């Protein structure tokens, strides 16, 4: 059901504002309204800046230490990305944590380590680049840049294959030269050549063979420089390892740091809540949406902090829409997952969750329609629900949907793509898809009819009699006409229902103009095309059911083909077993995803449109709900 919120003003002693907001956060029933003319003092700003600084520090420490955290396995990382695990803390523990001096020391250590790491990394990068440049000369253990009178030095490199060619070309000239090779690097040889000053042609010859001049000089022999740089690099890498080791040691603090990220996030929320209101020297003033029936209880709690405060209900402005909170209990809560994907209804619309629940479950079952897959889905979700308590509502949804999948599987007689339960089969989707097409179409008709009934009831309840009896009532009559025609086969009943629908739309049209009223009647006939396409849309359930079943059959066939093909006894069973397990699990996952999405779409597009528009704003109360932490009461 939809819980509506009412608008309130909260006035209290400024000195107690922090405690009052904290209590509001704990109760989780009030959403602060940001006033355009909100005011804040220098003190508020200072407080907010210090909280922001703390939050930034904790985020920095978390990011820094996460680098050294042990990497999660693929599966657990995947599960964690959907359902992050939260540590449990009570408020006292969190408060103590925020005042621990060790946290400041941790920030300092991380700052220090990060700076050192950055320095080492940039130095290492520089050294690696320099070594890379010098590597091809690392065999040269003397410095050629000595002032030889009348001689020049040429520093170059050449592809190893052309070494001989270069030497021969130089020797051909019968001019004195001295060449020293510097070692091979990626098939390239570095060298230096000493030649008479006036014989520049030797350089040209070297270049013509393919030698490239290197713009590099050394003050000392390259072998020595490279050795020194390598030693420095190795020392730095050792130091880097030490820092990483220290970082790893500090990863034990990550849970606390993450708890503090949530804590300072809440503190910031408090500051922003106070900023949204007004202040005098002694009092603060806030406006908030408070869930209906919860204001009195909250006021009681706040009065315990200070008797000098009050909560008063305010008139809503014209066209002002309160935020909406959907609240369903027990198993129905699980179906909020589906509604949640669509978004909240408007405050004057019904919560669609209880209405969609049975249809979603049946649609999912028909789309997956394999008893074996249903059982596997139930087992997987039961296990996951036990493991991840926070996501229990989500997994319960699939347990219910799994149960309907088992029923649909028995109806079509499929069990992991086999005919094991063929005896129970009522319809055969593979050999007689038309029969299943009728079945899903009837299911669609029923759901659309229920949607129209909900719409009729809701419009009537809201006092919109014209819409209730005109467009909705007319459509309901038409659907009743279809049912009467289906059961009796008498066409006049169907034609009569269309005429009655046409008349109802004219009679209850909101237009005064008779021509426009007549147009409303014709408009309702046009709506029939819409209903037809809505019902056709349910045929997807047949296609999805067939897809699951036939692919499951194919997996079984492939497994048996492997069994026959592989001549080694034992190995053939193992391969066939692997194909069966991997194939069926993959088929289940892919088709469960498709079944969820398409069943949800049937609710959003074909069903919701009959009684609601959606687009309501979700109620987002001040609350101590964190990304990493769950607050527990002690």
């Amino acid at each position: 059901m939809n819980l509506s919120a009412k608008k309130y003003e909260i006035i209290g002693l400024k000195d107690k504002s922090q405690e009052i907001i904290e209590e509001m956060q704990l109760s989780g029933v009030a959403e602060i309204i940001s006033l355009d003319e909100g005011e804040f003092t220098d003190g508020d700003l200072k407080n907010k800046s210090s909280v922001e600084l703390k939050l930034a520090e904790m985020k920095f420490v978390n990011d820094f230490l996460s680098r050294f955290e042990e990497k999660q396995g693929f599966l657990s990382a995947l599960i964690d990305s959907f359902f992050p695990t939260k540590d449990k803390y009570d408020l006292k523990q969190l408060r103590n944590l925020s005042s621990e001096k060790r946290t400041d020391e941790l920030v300092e250590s991380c700052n220090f380590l990060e700076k050192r790491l950055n320095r080492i990394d940039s130095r290492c990068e520089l050294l690696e680049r320099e070594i890379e440049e010098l590597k091809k000369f690392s065999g040269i253990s003397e410095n050629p840049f000595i002032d030889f009178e009348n001689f020049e030095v040429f520093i170059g490199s050449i592809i190893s294959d052309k070494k001989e060619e270069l030497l021969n070309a130089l020797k051909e000239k019968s001019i004195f030269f001295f060449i020293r090779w510097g070692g091979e690097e990626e098939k390239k040889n570095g060298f230096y050549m000493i030649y008479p000053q006036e014989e520049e042609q030797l350089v040209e010859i070297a270049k013509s063979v393919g030698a490239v001049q290197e713009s590099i000089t050394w003050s000392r022999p390259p072998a020595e420089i490279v050795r020194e740089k390598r030693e420095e690099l190795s020392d730095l890498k050792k130091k880097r390892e030490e820092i990483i080791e220290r970082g790893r040691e500090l990863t034990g603090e990550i849970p606390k740091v993450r708890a503090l990220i949530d804590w300072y996030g809440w503190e910031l929320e408090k500051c922003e809540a106070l900023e949204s209101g007004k202040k005098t020297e002694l009092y603060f003033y806030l406006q908030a949406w408070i869930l209906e029936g919860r204001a009195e209880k909250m006021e009681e709690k706040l009065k315990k902090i200070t008797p000098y405060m009050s909560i008063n209900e305010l008139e809503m402005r014209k066209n002002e829409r309160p935020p909406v909170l959907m609240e369903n209990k027990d198993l129905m809560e699980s179906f909020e997952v589906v509604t949640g994907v669509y978004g909240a209804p408007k405050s004057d619309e019904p919560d669609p969750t209880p209405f969609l629940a049975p249809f979603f479950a049946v649609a999912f079952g028909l789309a997956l329609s394999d008893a074996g897959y249903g059982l596997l889905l139930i087992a997987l979700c039961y296990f996951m629900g036990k493991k991840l308590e926070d996501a229990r509502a989500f997994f319960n949804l699939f347990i219910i949907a799994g149960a309907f999948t088992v029923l649909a599987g028995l109806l079509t007689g499929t069990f992991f793509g086999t005919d094991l339960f063929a005896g129970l089969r009522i319809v055969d989707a593979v050999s007689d898809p038309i029969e299943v097409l009728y079945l899903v179409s009837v299911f669609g008709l029923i759901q659309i009819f229920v949607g129209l009934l909900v719409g009729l009831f809701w419009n009537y309840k809201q006092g919109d009699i014209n819409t209730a009896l005109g467009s909705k009532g007319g459509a309901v009559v038409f659907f009743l006409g279809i049912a009467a025609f289906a059961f009796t086969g008498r066409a006049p009943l169907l034609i009569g229902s269309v005429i009655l629908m046409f008349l109802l739309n004219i009679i209850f049209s909101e237009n005064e103009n008779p021509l426009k009223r007549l147009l409303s009647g014709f408009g309702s006939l046009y709506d029939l095309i819409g209903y037809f396409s809505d019902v056709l849309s349910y045929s997807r359930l047949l296609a999805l059911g067939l897809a699951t079943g036939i692919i499951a059959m194919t997996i079984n066939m492939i497994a048996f083909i492997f069994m026959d093909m592989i001549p080694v006894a034992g190995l053939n069973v193992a391969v066939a077993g692997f194909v069966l397990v991997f194939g069926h699990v993959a088929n289940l996952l892919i088709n469960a995803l498709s079944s969820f999405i398409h069943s949800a779409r049937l609710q959003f597009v074909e069903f919701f449109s009959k009684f609601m528009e959606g687009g309501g704003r979700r109620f987002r109360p001040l609350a101590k709900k964190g990304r990493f932490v769950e607050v527990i009461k002690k």
Partner: protein
Amino acid sequence: MELGLILAILGAGLAVTLPCIGSAIALSAVGRSAAGLISEEPEKFGKALLLQVLPGTQGIYGFLAAVLVLQQVGLFGEEIVEVSAGVGWQILLACIPITLAGLLSAVFQGKVSVSGISTLAKKPEEAGKAIILSAMVETYAVIALLLTILILNGITV
């Protein structure tokens, strides 16, 4: 080999190949933008993966149609059935809906999924809506598959 059987195999081949190409194009586009997102926020991998696999279904639908064809002509472990040229043409034409709709809808669904990655980056809590928007495109591949199945079901070999 008889012309009928050649046409049936051609139909099955096209039904797998073109939707698979469409799915591969779409998955690669979504994968590239998802990789960009994950480089910044690796914790969003699961939802990004979900958006990426969505346009992969068309390839499976094509495969499903092909399996039905292969079963019908007895190429799946049974004895090959004699297929007349007329029936071969019928099977080939039956494969056209999923072949074309599978190819094109996968590519276009991929584009919606790529935009969905932006939604995931900016408002991760609304990722469900992005998934539904992407799935809307798939509807037409489902309808095409349904037609292919119904026609194949009506062909007597």
